[in-house]
């Protein structure tokens, strides 16, 4: 890189000039930091202000634009200049909007912001993307059911080649067996034609789709844009280069043999809803036992689902499927009688109309929990509405509405390294963890213990050659990773997206749509890979971690702690990065005990320079200094919004934004204390079962690391209270001042850091 030419540009607008001395800040820039160019402007974001900076950059006088104005969260596009990196000093939200005007402390804070920005510029380099070798635009779709076939078609319609891999000998998945399907378009009434056959032929007729049946994936290495995927098709192995992967392995029905209490196995005329589909598809409903027509049929809902001993979740589609099947029975034989025994009838959205259709057709809905189904087909249930056990007898058939189990593993394959696999497949979160409540008026109920939920068995779908293990991460109940509400497709394996019932129980229509969504993310992943830019959430980021292997101790912390499995180990156990897998959160950087991992524009050294640049008054001044590392995604915006609301914040606080708490290295904490800061606070997202970290594990890892900081403090003979980790959400703009002011008061009570002035 050409040598750095920093220029400082200070804005007088939005009350800055009225609140602090511009000259003082200018002095900090020019005299203290010897920045050659330093200009002020009445309204820097106005066209003239921007033009002024543009001119300097164009003239080649400045290639590091240091803006002393508003928060980096705003005017981002205005202060973006070709051929220069931009560094922001947050003088507005975090100084003049949250401090009294004209005070000495306010000026000190403003000056320190300029100091930190100047210090940040010293080692900051414009990030250059890492793009080497060839990239593939081909999308691999695993699974030949509705989800997979839909994904394949969507991908080719968007101009991509597809390899579609199906484990069995034909396409179509479960849907091939369906007689008819539930309605998903107006008028949302009776069952509609099962059009899966036309989808199959569309796929088979699509020249850009290479269909591989009787095939499974045996190995997946590499990264988005350049996955090396090995297939085994009837014994022969081939390896292809793949741009991105869509996993559409779907579901399987819950094993009905585990439902003995519901009569399965006791009588051939107790069947599952899946078996019922086949029977209906053959036309004319005949009892398995004697071939007689079944005219009185009972449907038992939640057969396995919503049951802690079986499937704790709701399988979502069963109510509509039973309604469909009942309507089919009623249609075939107007005198037939159908009962649907349910606990909660779930026909969300426009499916409510479908429910009404069944009622109109005379299907009888009875609310209650089924206790038993006898060999004589008597269904005994506890009737919630009539208030006692009512035997439902004289039935010709009983249909158990069994639920969906996600195919997050390949049950037909052997587990690889069972212990390690089990560890990876164990529930990552407890979706039923107790929520925070103020307490109980009466006696508190016993604390719920986390139920031991079954760990999915079988081999991996993709057999990822990742340090973190062969499986696609999952959170709970075997459903593939994404715990995000706003970003449902984000997984912890960049470039690999799941869709359909492997992600969440869903019907055919939703599955087809879900497939389109997953394909879009896959296309983005391979495009970004070839451009060397990051995927969500740091979309477009060109920086990536660099490893100084010369001093690497092969401790493996970076490879282990990376939430995205971006870092592998080479044969010599050195970390090697797969840049297209990396999300640029810096968790590896925070993990590295020898601080040899860094980004061009974010590194242990750059942040150390920043925190060291702050002027630390001696203890006689009575002005403590508190260093805060704030997650730039949530905590930092919350501090900004405190300013927007004009909440006053302790003037002793100095805030440095970090990509994620996961990137915070203990070095920064110890350096800060050595430099004489009186307290250090880490502000990050919630961790745990309801984690809110955009990098999934960052805040949890930081918590883990900080739990050990006590030793460091002891070695420095300092009080543990001087360092604290606070969970701050983006909606904490009112709480942030309280937290910071309280901490600052507490620090004053503890007393000043004895290292001051050393």
């Amino acid at each position: 890189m050409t040598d750095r030419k920093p220029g400082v540009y200070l804005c007088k607008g939005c009350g800055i000039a009225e609140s602090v001395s511009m000259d003082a800040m200018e002095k900090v820039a020019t005299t203290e930091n010897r920045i050659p160019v330093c200009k002020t402007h009445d309204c820097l974001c106005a066209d003239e202000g921007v033009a002024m900076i543009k001119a300097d950059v164009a003239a080649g006088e400045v290639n590091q634009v240091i803006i002393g104005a508003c928060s980096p969260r705003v005017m981002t596009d205005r202060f973006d200049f070709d051929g220069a990196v931009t560094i922001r000093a947050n003088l507005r939200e975090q100084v003049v909007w949250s401090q009294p005007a004209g005070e000495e402390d306010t000026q000190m804070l403003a000056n320190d912001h300029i100091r930190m920005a100047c210090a940040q510029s010293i080692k900051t380099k414009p990030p250059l993307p890492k793009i080497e070798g060839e990239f593939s635009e081909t999308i691999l779709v695993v699974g030949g059911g509705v989800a997979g076939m839909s994904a394949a078609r969507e991908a080719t319609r968007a101009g991509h080649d597809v390899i579609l891999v199906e484990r069995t000998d034909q396409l179509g998945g479960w849907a091939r067996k369906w007689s008819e399907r539930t309605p998903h378009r107006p008028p949302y009434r009776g069952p509609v034609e099962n059009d899966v056959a036309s989808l199959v032929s569309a796929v088979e007729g699509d020249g850009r789709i290479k269909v591989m049946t009787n095939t499974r994936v045996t190995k997946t290495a590499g990264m988005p844009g350049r996955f090396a995927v090995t297939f085994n098709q009837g014994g022969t192995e081939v390896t292809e280069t793949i741009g991105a992967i869509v996993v559409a392995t779907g579901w399987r029905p819950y094993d009905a043999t585990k439902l003995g209490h519901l009569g399965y196995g006791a009588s051939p005329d107790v069947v599952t809803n899946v078996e019922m589909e086949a029977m209906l598809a053959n036309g004319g409903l005949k009892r398995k036992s004697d071939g007689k027509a079944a005219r009185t049929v009972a449907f038992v809902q939640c057969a396995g689902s919503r049951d802690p001993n079986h499937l704790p979740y709701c399988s979502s589609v069963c109510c509509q499927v039973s309604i469909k099947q009942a309507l089919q029975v009623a249609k075939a034989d107007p005198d037939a009688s159908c009962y649907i025994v349910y606990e909660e009838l779930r026909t969300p959205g426009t499916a409510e109309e479908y429910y009404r259709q069944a009622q109109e057709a005379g299907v009888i809905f009875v609310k209650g929990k089924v206790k038993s189904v006898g060999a004589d087909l008597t269904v005994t249930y506890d009737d919630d509405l009539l208030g006692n056990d009512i035997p439902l007898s004289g039935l010709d058939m009983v249909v158990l509405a069994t639920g969906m189990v996600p195919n997050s593993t390949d049950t037909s394959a052997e587990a690889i390294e069972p212990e390690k696999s089990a560890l990876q497949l164990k529930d990552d979160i407890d979706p039923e963890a107790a929520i925070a409540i103020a307490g109980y008026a009466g006696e508190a109920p016993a604390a719920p213990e986390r139920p031991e939920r079954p760990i999915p068995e079988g081999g991996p779908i993709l057999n990822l050659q990742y340090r973190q293990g062969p499986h696609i991460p999952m959170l709970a109940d075997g459903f593939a990773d994404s715990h995000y509400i706003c970003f449902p497709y984000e997984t912890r394996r960049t470039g690999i997206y799941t869709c359909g019932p492997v992600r969440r129980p869903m019907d055919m229509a939703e599955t087809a749509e879900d497939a389109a969504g997953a394909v879009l993310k896959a296309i983005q992943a391979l495009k970004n890979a070839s451009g060397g830019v990051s995927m969500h959430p740091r979309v477009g980021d060109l920086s990536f971690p660099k490893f100084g292997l010369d001093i690497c101790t092969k401790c493996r912390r970076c490879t282990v702690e990376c939430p995205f499995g971006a870092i592998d180990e080479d044969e010599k156990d050195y970390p090697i990065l797969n840049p297209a897998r990396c999300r640029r959160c810096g968790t590896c950087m925070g993990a590295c005990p020898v601080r040899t991992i860094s980004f061009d524009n974010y590194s242990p050294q750059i942040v150390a320079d920043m925190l060291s640049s702050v002027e630390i008054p001696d203890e006689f001044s009575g002005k403590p200094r508190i260093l805060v590392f704030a997650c730039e995604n949530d905590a930092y915006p919350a501090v900004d919004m405190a300013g927007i609301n004009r909440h006053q914040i302790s003037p002793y606080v100095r805030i440095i934004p970090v990509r994620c708490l996961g990137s915070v290295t203990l070095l920064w904490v110890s350096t800060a204390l050595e430099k004489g800061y009186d307290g250090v606070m880490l502000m990050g997202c919630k961790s745990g079962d309801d984690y809110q970290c955009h990098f999934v594990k960052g805040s949890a890892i930081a918590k883990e690391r900080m739990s050990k900081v006590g030793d460091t403090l002891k070695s420095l003979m300092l009080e543990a209270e001087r360092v604290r980790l606070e969970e701050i959400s983006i909606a904490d703009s009112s709480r942030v001042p309280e937290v910071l002011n309280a901490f600052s008061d507490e620090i004053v009570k503890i007393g000043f850091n004895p290292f001051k002035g050393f």
Partner: protein
Amino acid sequence: MTAPAPDTTRKYDLAFAKWVYKNVNGGDKLSMCMQCGMCSGSCPIGVQMDYGPRKLFMMIRAGMKEEVLSSNTLWNCTSCYRCVVRCPRSVPVTYILQDLAAKASELGYAPKKENKRFADSFWWSARLFGRTDERLVTAKYYFSFGLSEGIKRGLDNLKIAMGMIKAGRMHIGMPHTVKGRKGLQAALKKAAEIEARQSGV
């Protein structure tokens, strides 16, 4: 107010439900009930009903013919139509209760019920005179309980009656009648025949 526990040996039996769907006025909409409780909750004297419309409908589906037809729910409907206009499934609750009452009396489930006596007294007047003579309807109704009870009730309400007479709202003398009595009675007789023919009751 709470109902006698339904016979636990009972089996769900659609025959009765289907009979209701087919023969009771509004019964075809009964299958739409989703047991939300809006009707029973809206009823002005729902508290005094043994089951209330919502539960009664569930019992119909359960085929509890005896309990349903001898339920006092049918007879406590004040015809306020609150349930009808509120039902989220557009079930014409009032009409169904009214006609279930009619069917119950047809099938002899309610000979001694006050409402039945009143209805008969009312119809007696309507049929006989073509108009309701409130005075005679009330009297006939009172005396349907027997002479002494009739006199007692009569005396209880004597003050009211006198007040009404004083205000000219109750007349003395011959009942008001329609001129076309004969024709009306013939028409009503015919109507009854047609109905019997159609429902096959």
